[in-house]
C-alpha cells in the first residue's frame, strides 16, 4: 500500500503544474467511455467481398494458406484433405464450439476427432476465430471451452475457421464486437491476434517459420456467397 501511495504521490507532484485532478478526471473518464478510434487506415475500408479478398491476400502474404468453403458442412472433408496432403496423422483436436461441432465429422470415417485443450501431443488443432482483420490478414481468437487457447500455440499445424461475415476492415471494429459480446470494459480472458504462422529472426536476422508456435497456419473462410 505504501509503495502505491509513494509512486502515485511522486507522479502527482511531478504533474502538479498540469492541471487540477477534478478537471483531469473528467477528461480521463471521457476518453475511457468514448474510446475514440483515432486514425483508421483506408486500406481495410472496403465493401464486404473486397474486404474478404483483402483479408485473404494479406494472410497469404504472411505465409498463411487460405481456402474458402460455402458451408460448415464442408469442414470435415476439407480438414481431412489438408492433413492427407501433408502426410499428417488423420486426427484433429478441437474445443466445444457449436459451429464446428454441427458439421458431420463422422462422414470422414478415418478422421479421429479429439476434444478439449491440448497437452502438446497433437499434431493439428482446429479453432473457430471470433473475428478477423482484413487490413493485416489477422485472426482474432478468444479463450474458453469453445476454443481453448492451447490449440492456438501447441500443435504444429493450426487450422482456423472464420465466417466471412466476421471479417472486419480494421482492429478497431473488433473492439466493437468484443464490447457487444463481453460488455464494456470487459474482456475474454485472452484475445489472441494471430497474423501468420510463428517465426523467428533471432539467428542472423533471417526469418524462419515455425518457432514455438505452429509451423503452419491454414485458414478456412466459410462464405455462403463464395460463388459471387
Amino acid at each position, binding site marked *: 500500500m505504501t509503495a502505491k501511495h509513494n509512486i502515485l504521490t511522486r*507522479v502527482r507532484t511531478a504533474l502538479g503544474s498540469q492541471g487540477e485532478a477534478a478537471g483531469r478526471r473528467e477528461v480521463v473518464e471521457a476518453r475511457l467511455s468514448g*474510446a475514440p478510434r483515432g*486514425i483508421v487506415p483506408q486500406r481495410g475500408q472496403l465493401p464486404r467481398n473486397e474486404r474478404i479478398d483483402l483479408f485473404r491476400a494479406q494472410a497469404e502474404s504472411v505465409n498463411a494458406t487460405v481456402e474458402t468453403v460455402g458451408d460448415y458442412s464442408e469442414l470435415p472433408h476439407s480438414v481431412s484433405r489438408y492433413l492427407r496432403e501433408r502426410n499428417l496423422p488423420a486426427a484433429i483436436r478441437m474445443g466445444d464450439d457449436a459451429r464446428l461441432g454441427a458439421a458431420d465429422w463422422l462422414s470422414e470415417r478415418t478422421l479421429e476427432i479429439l476434444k478439449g485443450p491440448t497437452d502438446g501431443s497433437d499434431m493439428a488443432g482446429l479453432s473457430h476465430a471470433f473475428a478477423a482483420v482484413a487490413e493485416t490478414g489477422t485472426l482474432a481468437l478468444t479463450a474458453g471451452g469453445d476454443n481453448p487457447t492451447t490449440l492456438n500455440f501447441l500443435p504444429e499445424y493450426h487450422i482456423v475457421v472464420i465466417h466471412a461475415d466476421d471479417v472486419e476492415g480494421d482492429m478497431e471494429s473488433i473492439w466493437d464486437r468484443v464490447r457487444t459480446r463481453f460488455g464494456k470494459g470487459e474482456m475474454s480472458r485472452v484475445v489472441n491476434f494471430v497474423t501468420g504462422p510463428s517465426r523467428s529472426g533471432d539467428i542472423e536476422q533471417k526469418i524462419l517459420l515455425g518457432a514455438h508456435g505452429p509451423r503452419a497456419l491454414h485458414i478456412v473462410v466459410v462464405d455462403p456467397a463464395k460463388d459471387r
Partner: protein
Amino acid sequence: MQLTSHKFKSHVSKALVDAQLQKALGNVEKGFIDKRAKAAGALPEFESLRDNAKAIKDHTLANLDLYLETYEARVTAAGGTVHWAETAADARNIVLDICKRRGARTVTKGKSMITEEIGLNDFLSQHDIEPVETDLGEYIIQLRGEHPSHIIAPAVHLNKDQVEGDFRRVHTHLPEFRDLTEPTALLSEAREVLRQRYFEADVGITGANFLVAETGSSVIVTNEGNGDLTQTLGKVHVVVASIEKIVPTLEDTSQILRVLARSATGQDMSVYTTFSTGPKRPDDPDGPEEYHVILLDNGRSSMLGTEYQDMLRCIRCGACMNHCPVYHAVGGHAYGSVYPGPMGAVLTPSLNGIDKAGHLPNASTFCGRCEAVCPMRIPLPKMMRHWREQEFEKHLSARASRYGLGLWAFFARRPKLYRAAVSLAMPLLSRLAGKRHRLGALPLAGGWTDHRDLPAPEGPTFMQQYRKHQASHRP
C-alpha cells in the same frame, strides 16, 4: 546487470576489432532499415499515426496517476492482483514471494527488457529457482551467460556458427553428429528442448508492451509464440511492467500497434498480439490459476515533469538503434547498460544517474536519424545534448575534452589570435596528409583516427575565403 557504461571507450576499442561482432552487425543494417522503410512507405497514414501515437502517450503521461488507478481497479475486478514496486529490489522480492508461495522450482520467461533491468534472472538463481528464457535469442544468450545486445533482437551480435557451438556444448543429451549447419535445424532443436520446460514451469513471467486501463489487460507482442506458451502453461502468470506502459483504451493500443511492428521489424503486425485479462475463468479449460502484475517505477516518476519526460513515450521498438551509425559500428554490449543505442543513451542516465552513465550521451554523431525514425517522435538528440550539458556542468567529462574545450574557448574569445593560430595549423595538417588529403593518424587524436581518416583541411581558412568573397562582391 552490472552497469559498465563508464568503460564505454574501452568497450568500443574492443568491439571495433571483434571480427565476429563486426560480421554480425552487418545484419542490423541489412535486416532492419529497408524493411522498416518499406512497411512505413506502404501505409499512407503512417506519419499521421505517429502523430497520434505520440499524442496518446502524452495524454496518458499527463494523467498517469488516474490511468494507473483505473488500470488497477480493472485488473482486480478481473480476478488479478496488482503489486506496486518502487525499486528494482522491490520488484524482485515480489516475484520471489510469489514463487516461494507456489513452491516454484523453475520459471519460464517470455522476452522482457524490464526483467533485464531489474536483474531478475541472477536473483532467482541465487534463490535456487531456475529461470528459463524461452525466446530463441534470449535462450541463446542465456546459454552464453550474456545480456541482450539489442532490445528486440537480443542475439543480434552472434553468428550462426557461434549458436551451433553453444547448442553442442549444452545439449549434450542429443546425438553428437547431428547436422546443425542450417539455421532451421537450430530453431527446431531449441523448440524441442524448450517445449518440455513450459510444462514443467510453475510460474511464467512476461513483460508487457502495453497495459490497457479500460480493461485491465496486459498486452504482449511476439513472433515466436513463446510468450503465449509461457503465460498459458505456467500455473501462475506474472507480468512485470513499468508504470509508463499504460494506455487508456483498446483503440489507443491499436493505434500504437500500427507503428510498433512497422518500426521494429517492418511487419504490419507481429505474428502474435495477445491481450490477457485476469486468471483462468470457470469455463476456461486452460490458462493460469493466478494472474499478477508488478507495476514498477524504478526512476520513471522522477522523469515526469522534467526535460526527459518525452522518453517515457518509448515503446521499445528498437528503430533508433537500428538506424544509429554508432550502434552499427560497436553493437549493443559496448554501451555497458541494459538499454543500448540512442534510447539507452537517454534512458540509462535517467534511471541510473549521469555519473554512472557518463559516456553514453556522447555515443552519438548527432546525425538525427534516430529521431527521424522514432515512431513516438522522441527528440533523442536533444535529450542527449541535455545530458551532455549536465555532464559538463557537473565536471564529469574527461580532463582532455574539458581542456580542449577550454582551449577552444580561449581562442574563440580572441578572434585575431584564433585566426592566426588556424592559418598556422592548416598548412601543417595539409602537409601531414600528403597527396591523399586524408589524415590516417594524428597526434593526440588517435581515438578518432584509429578507425577512420580525418579529412585534411585544404586551401585557405573559412575567414580568409569569406573576406576574399566579400571583397570581390563589393559594389
